[in-house]
């Protein structure tokens, strides 16, 4: 049989985001695969050097579209690290709540979203509708559904009122009551087992050699989570577990995302109890915020996003604008090196499942 080449291109319903893969296929099995990134390139690293330190706050949430809060927390933590600023305690707890809600919102799009390539369309319908309730919390707290611009260097923008705390409690109680329904629909389904169990296996050596982080690494048996190994904010003061699995196949990666949601709910409940009263932001510039200057220095900050390790490397030379900001996207290893080396050998109908379970998110590769 000869080799047929076709492209799993940017305009495809099985592709999440604007990303393209060229496939060389013999029969039904993929023999060679080439990723083509660059459709969403805006030149962020150059644009950030041309705006003042505070003007960048409006620009950076747009780097990672499904989960924008990780950009804001990394930028703020990098400035606080270089300039040695102390953030008030209440602000750190509110930041933790916002990050865990963003993680839950992203998980609700990804594990029911596996129903898209598999044909189980009830999954995305339920998942996106439940995610909308979390976006309602964000709208009450920050004013916008998708791009919040809420976490700033020095704290958060506005305080959380008791009415919003009530709304959060009610929403997470409702979500907790819906989790058994999701388990029955997706994870006890015989067709999902046939399509996902035992496929697309990633061993521990392969994952560590590639540099995969997040769920892809925890599905091979090691509990490597940045919140436990290199804690930031107050993650060392709350009590939660990190679920792991041993098989390393596609089913366990999707199931681990489902198991992380009760842990996030536990963290949010503990944070709401332990939060003290007080100020939520500290003024970091002595005059106008538009003339703020950060002292010279280098810093690298990373957080655990829902896809893996997401980091910012920042260089400041004492001026009004950043000198260099480099972004490390969480899906950079899997999206580029993983597709070239590990996609050959799968069948054509498993290519969208590969991309969905290995968390390839296009905007953070292109920036």
């Amino acid at each position, binding site marked *: 049989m000869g080799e047929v080449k076709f492209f799993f291109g940017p305009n495809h319903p099985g592709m999440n985001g604007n990303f393209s893969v060229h496939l060389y296929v013999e029969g039904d099995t993929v023999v060679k695969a080439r990723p083509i*990134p*660059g459709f969403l*390139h805006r*030149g962020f*690293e*150059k*644009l950030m050097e*041309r705006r003042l330190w505070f003007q960048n706050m409006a620009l950076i949430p747009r780097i990672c579209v499904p989960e924008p809060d990780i950009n804001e927390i990394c930028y703020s933590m990098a400035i606080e*690290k270089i300039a040695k600023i102390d953030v008030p305690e209440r602000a750190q707890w509110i930041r933790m709540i916002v990050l865990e809600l963003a993680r839950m919102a992203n998980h609700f799009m990804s594990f029911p979203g596996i129903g898209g390539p598999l044909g189980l369309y009830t999954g995305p319908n339920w998942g996106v509708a439940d995610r909308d309730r979390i976006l309602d919390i964000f709208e009450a707290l920050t004013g916008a559904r998708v791009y919040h611009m809420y976490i700033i260097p020095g704290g958060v923008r506005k305080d959380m009122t008791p009415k919003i705390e009530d709304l959060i409690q009610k929403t997470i109680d409702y979500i907790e009551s819906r989790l058994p329904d999701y388990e029955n629909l997706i994870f006890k389904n015989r067709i999902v087992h046939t399509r996902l169990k035992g496929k697309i296996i990633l061993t521990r050596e392969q994952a*560590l*050699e*590639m*540099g995969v*982080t997040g769920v892809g690494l925890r599905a091979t048996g*090691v509990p*490597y989570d*940045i919140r436990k*190994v*290199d*804690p930031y904010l107050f993650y060392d003061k709350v009590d939660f577990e990190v679920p792991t699995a041993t098989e390393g196949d596609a089913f366990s990666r999707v199931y681990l995302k489902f198991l992380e949601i009760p842990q996030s709910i536990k963290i949010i409940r503990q944070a709401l109890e332990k939060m003290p009263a007080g100020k939520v932001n500290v003024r970091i510039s002595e005059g106008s915020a538009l003339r703020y200057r950060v002292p010279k*220095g*280098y*810093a*690298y900050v*990373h957080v655990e996003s829902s896809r893996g*390790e997401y*980091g910012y*490397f920042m*260089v400041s030379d004492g001026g009004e604008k950043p*000198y*260099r900001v*480099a972004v*490390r996207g969480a899906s*950079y*290893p899997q999206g*580029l*090196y993983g597709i070239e*080396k590990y996609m050959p050998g799968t069948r054509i109908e498993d290519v969208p499942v590969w991309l969905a379970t290995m968390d390839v998110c296009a905007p953070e590769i*292109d920036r």
Partner: protein
Amino acid sequence: MTSSMNEVIEKIRRQFKDVSITETDEREVKIDALQENVLGILSILKNEGFSHLSLLTCVDWIENKEFELVYILFSWKDGGKIIVSTRIDRENPKFVTVKHMWPVARFYEREIHEFFGVEFEGNDDMKPLILELWDDIPPLRKDFDPLEYSRKKFPDREYKKDVLQEARIFRGETNG
């Protein structure tokens, strides 16, 4: 610094002269080294537990006429971050590749070649990754002006200024 980071830093200080070490935080250390010593330092660090390459990037210092290559390593055992950086010449930028130690570095180096113009010996896969049909100097260098490029190639929308209407809004007679 954590205890294992202390041991590793002592080992490096004994073996290599001309390294300068700054401590930013209790879990982050920056090492500035010369070009010849970088591969040696990276292999020592990789064997001592700092086996995860988080990022490989480049900074353009245009007044000193240098590029600075930055390698960021992370250890899963105790959570320490080490930043290794070196300076190379800006007129003729060349360096060796590290893709035999970390295979992902192939793509980081391809991107640095596209955006800064740095040549990497040993890595021959230098096709453009993100840009297509680019016709100007590498974009992330400091002497490239994106606003002028954008005005030349992508025309803007012109807005006509209506002074009387703006005066009415200012006086409060109509809403904007």
